[in-house]
């Protein structure tokens, strides 16, 4: 195969067809007898109160923010990591400085108590 991404595209198509096939067979052969009690939301035998889409803890949001910093960072670090042996020492140290700036961000969040689960 000449084009690697064409291959991935074909893989994606097969990768979607294969899981869907048993679901279709199941849809054909499985019984379909819905009733309100069967379809009610499960909650250990009692009826649910209020909306299921509840508010979530703000803490999740803070962790997501810290994660976002590091996730973007890694995209920049991959090209640097691959070329370390071809780069001059100055550039390698500059990459390390970049990591240290991000570590400073992590330390700041840590000192501010943002990494505690309250």
């Amino acid at each position: 195969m000449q084009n690697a991404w064409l291959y991935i595209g074909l893989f994606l198509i097969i990768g979607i067809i294969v899981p869907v096939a048993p679901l279709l067979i199941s849809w054909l052969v499985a019984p379909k007898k819905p009733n309100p009690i069967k379809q009610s939301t499960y909650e250990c035998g009692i009826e649910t109160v209020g909306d299921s889409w509840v508010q979530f803890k703000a803490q999740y949001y803070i962790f997501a923010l810290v994660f976002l910093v590091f996730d973007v960072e890694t995209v920049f670090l991959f090209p640097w990591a691959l070329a370390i042996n071809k780069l001059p020492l100055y550039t390698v140290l500059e990459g390390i400085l970049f990591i240290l700036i991000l570590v400073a961000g992590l330390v700041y969040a840590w000192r501010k108590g943002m990494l505690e689960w309250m």
Partner: protein
Amino acid sequence: MTFWSDPVNFIAAWLRGILAGWGMGAALANILLALSGIIVLVVFALVLDIFLVWVERKVVARFQDRLGPNRIGPFGIFQPFADIIKLIIKEDITPEGADKVVYNIAPVLAATAVILLWAILPLASTIYGVDLNVALLYLVATGALGALAIIMGGWASNNKYALLGAFRMVAIMVSYEVPMVVALLIPAVITGTMSVKGITEFQSGVWIVILSPLAAVIFIISAIAELGRAPFDLNEAESEIVAGFNIEYTGMKFGWFYASELLHSFTFGGFIAVLFFGGYNFFGLEKYPLLGVVIFLAKALFFYWVIMWVKYSMPRIRIDHMLAFSWKFLTPLSLALLIITAVVDKFLAPTNFYMLGMFLTNVVIAWLTIEILRAYGKRQRKAEETPVQPVAEAAHH
């Protein structure tokens, strides 16, 4: 080129000859051959998946001192087939108020995410899907798709337990993605390539686990967390939120979540083997690709067993411990390891001390980490031993 040195291309050349004989264009024949290769690979993965259900149940039974399935076929080996038939003929219940589109896409996406990982897994030197030049980024992206499927399923079920499971999965994914990616950067630094096949070929001499054992440990821990398996199975914590994200799923949709979790574990076992333990390399036996496949599968099965071993030996950890372990321990450790690996690689790569230097650096970092943790633990114990003044306690709150 003979069958024994390159079976895939041997068969492909033979089939291409037949198709050309029928008067088919070269481009169409190539696509057709690629498609049939993909189908063989995917079917192989799924047959393996069925076998893994049996392995998992047998192994957990042994860990818990019972027999496991032993009724259907010898040693209960046909149990998974009975399971599949049962799952397919079960009624598919959609809970009221569920977001139907997302609810139905989630199990398919869970399976697709795993199957896509098989595209880049090098089974042997000449047997692999595709040699992608950005395979490490592809691995991270596709691995995260599995977590996305869990989040989608939990969110769309219109169930509070399922939603809690989805939230926890977000927290796990967000926390352990960082050490995992940084651990993946270390093979990239050492080999200078992102292609999984290139990394494997580099390891025909020395395995990366010898050059950087810490990176291997960090990758294994964060892979277990990304898979959402115990001790990080907060997303389905049976004793707290019943079954978490898959609580409302029935029949084959639940089956896909279960099957893709097992195959995901095996595939990540395979990636641990490929990235750190030499993949299909084993003292020159990799010259014969079919033997290489056996070696690769044996290594992957071993790491799958390690993941199971951890799962059935450890209690589930609390969510604040889980987050603290990633952000306050694994992330700083992995970043320190990356910086030092980069420096050592830069200075020692042309010299003869490369292997020794890398290994010793890792040992020193591990020793320093243990010393820091010991000092921290000592301080913690001392703080607990000194009696707390009631007044100070009250002022603190």
